[in-house]
């Protein structure tokens, strides 16, 4: 903060526009490509959401398709497939939040307690890697390991046991999804907790230990409270993103598990709209999802402010 205000020339003063322009035209020039991209690939599509209120026909285009008000949302409301997708989305989101979220915190606490830097670095190198693999690759690796003809089931067959349908059982699908998520991202999610842990003042631990606090009491009274801000921040981000449970992960496995368990709002949008040609229903479902997601994010952030945490979007300025 201090550093920024020391840039003296560009304080907010009410210079005339022409003066500012002469001073800043190069900066404005640098903004142009980015702004063009934003307009073309974010704001234009945002406006394109109006097809949710139309009986959209591709050959007529947005300009000439007929408006039909909230008709698409009404038919969505009557569509049992939409409710299935919504239910699956919420169920999967809840399972992810409960089973995934604590894992990186636990891993970070263990890694932070390691004395040997060498082991720590080795583990970090391995644990961060899967984050950079694509979902196609992750699902493929799971299929090769756990699938019907996969590695584990081959071993089971050799041992004379029955193979277990890990990859195709709709009932256990939420657990499979979480397992994949943990495999891919738990290590990476650890990074931010590890960084937060390094900022904890060591003299606090020392003083607590001198006062006779054991390992667990130090964990409870020093470590976890100092992670609080980060945990709240990540929870908010998670909640804002909760309706996007992980699109590619589901589209890749929808065929093998079946839409009954693997249809989520995003895949519903894709299959109804792009594949099925019912553009308006798809757009309506997508828009509903986007709006609810934004509201959730905003709500979670306000709640964090209430609780005295900084959250993601600070009230004013940054």
């Amino acid at each position, binding site marked *: 903060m201090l550093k920024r205000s*020391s840039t003296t020339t560009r304080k907010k003063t009410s210079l005339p526009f022409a003066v500012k322009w002469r001073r800043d035209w190069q900066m404005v020039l640098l903004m142009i490509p980015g702004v063009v991209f934003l307009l073309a690939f974010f704001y234009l599509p945002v406006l394109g959401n109006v097809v949710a209120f139309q009986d959209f026909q591709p050959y007529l285009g947005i300009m000439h398709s007929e408006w039909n008000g909230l008709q698409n949302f009404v038919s969505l409301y009557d569509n049992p497939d939409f409710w299935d997708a919504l239910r699956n989305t919420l169920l999967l989101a809840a399972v992810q939040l409960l089973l995934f979220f604590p894992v990186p915190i636990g891993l970070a606490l*263990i890694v932070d307690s390691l004395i040997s830097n060498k082991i720590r670095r080795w583990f970090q190198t391995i644990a961060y890697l899967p984050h950079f*693999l694509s979902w*196609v690759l992750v699902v*493929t690796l799971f299929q090769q390991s756990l699938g019907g003809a996969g590695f584990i089931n081959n071993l089971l067959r050799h041992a004379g046991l029955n193979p277990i349908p890990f990859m195709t059982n709709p009932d256990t699908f939420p657990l499979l999804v979480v397992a994949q998520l943990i495999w891919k991202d738990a290590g990476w999610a650890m990074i931010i907790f590890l960084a937060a842990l390094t900022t904890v003042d060591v003299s606090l631990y020392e003083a607590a230990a001198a006062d006779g606090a054991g390992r667990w009491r130090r964990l409870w009274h020093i470590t976890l409270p100092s992670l609080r801000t980060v945990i709240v921040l990540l929870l908010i981000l998670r909640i804002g993103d909760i309706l996007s449970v992980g699109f590619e992960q589901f589209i890749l496995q929808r065929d093998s598990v079946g839409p009954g368990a693997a249809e989520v709002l995003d895949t519903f949008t894709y299959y109804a709209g792009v594949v099925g040609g019912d553009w308006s229903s798809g757009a309506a479902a997508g828009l509903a999802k986007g709006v609810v997601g934004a509201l959730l994010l905003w709500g979670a952030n306000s709640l964090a402010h209430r609780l005295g945490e900084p959250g993601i979007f600070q009230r004013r300025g940054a």
Partner: protein
Amino acid sequence: MRPIWKERPSPGYQAIKALVLGGFALVIVVPILVVISTSLASDRDIIDAGGYVLWPSHPTFKAYQTLFSGGLMGRAILVSVFVTVVGTAIALAVTIALAYATSRPVLFGRPVLLMVLFTLLFAPGIIPMFLVVKQLGLLDSLWSLILPGALGAFNFVVLRTFFMNVPGELLESARIDGASDFVILRRIVLPLSKAVVAVVGLFYAVGFWNAFFNALLYLNDTSKWPVQVILRTYVLQGKSLSADQLGVHPPPQPQSLQMAVVVVALVPIAMVYPFLQRHFTKGVITGAVKG
């Protein structure tokens, strides 16, 4: 070194720690190793092992030769490399310019910043995105894989936060010496930010290399498929990469061929990853401390 106030952990406690971390690491490493070994295994190895090979006793590159002698995979790699290289270059240029221009209080800086931050809150949705890409005539063009992903809000925040922390005095003195904003960006700000730019570049490159759904959505023409779509079609969905597609007879055990496809999707990432790993924390934390 163990600080003196820290008690020595009990053997049981240490065993649990080792088990958790060791188990987690093994579960990550073993499937990757099995895939690599199987791709290098000869037909005999695969038959002996019953499908998957932990260690190929007769290693061979036959699967790779078959893979690269055919049109499909060679083309897919070219497509993926093109999209990754060009996409990363464009995305970095656009993001650096925008992040630098909004990192100082300048004309239009504030509204443009808010324009970007709003994208963090709301996603436009699949259907409108598809319609825009179609309207712009980008369907079935490789640009449809590049342009929509050219400005990532997270990467923008990381870079902007870093640029904001470049000391103002440095820029002031350059300006007094007559340097323009372009020169300051190129000669002062960028050289100071090499590590962060590298990490953001890696994030973009990985994103472009890994992109699967965009290709599924925007490309119908199979000759333009990137590696990820090939991986999905021929390994995950188990379609056969038949001999005539590849132009070589007879094909080796499809198992090793399939695993070779997996390795091709994996290798570029495994190659750049170690070089950038030590910068991760900086990049991620800069972004999280927000702007």
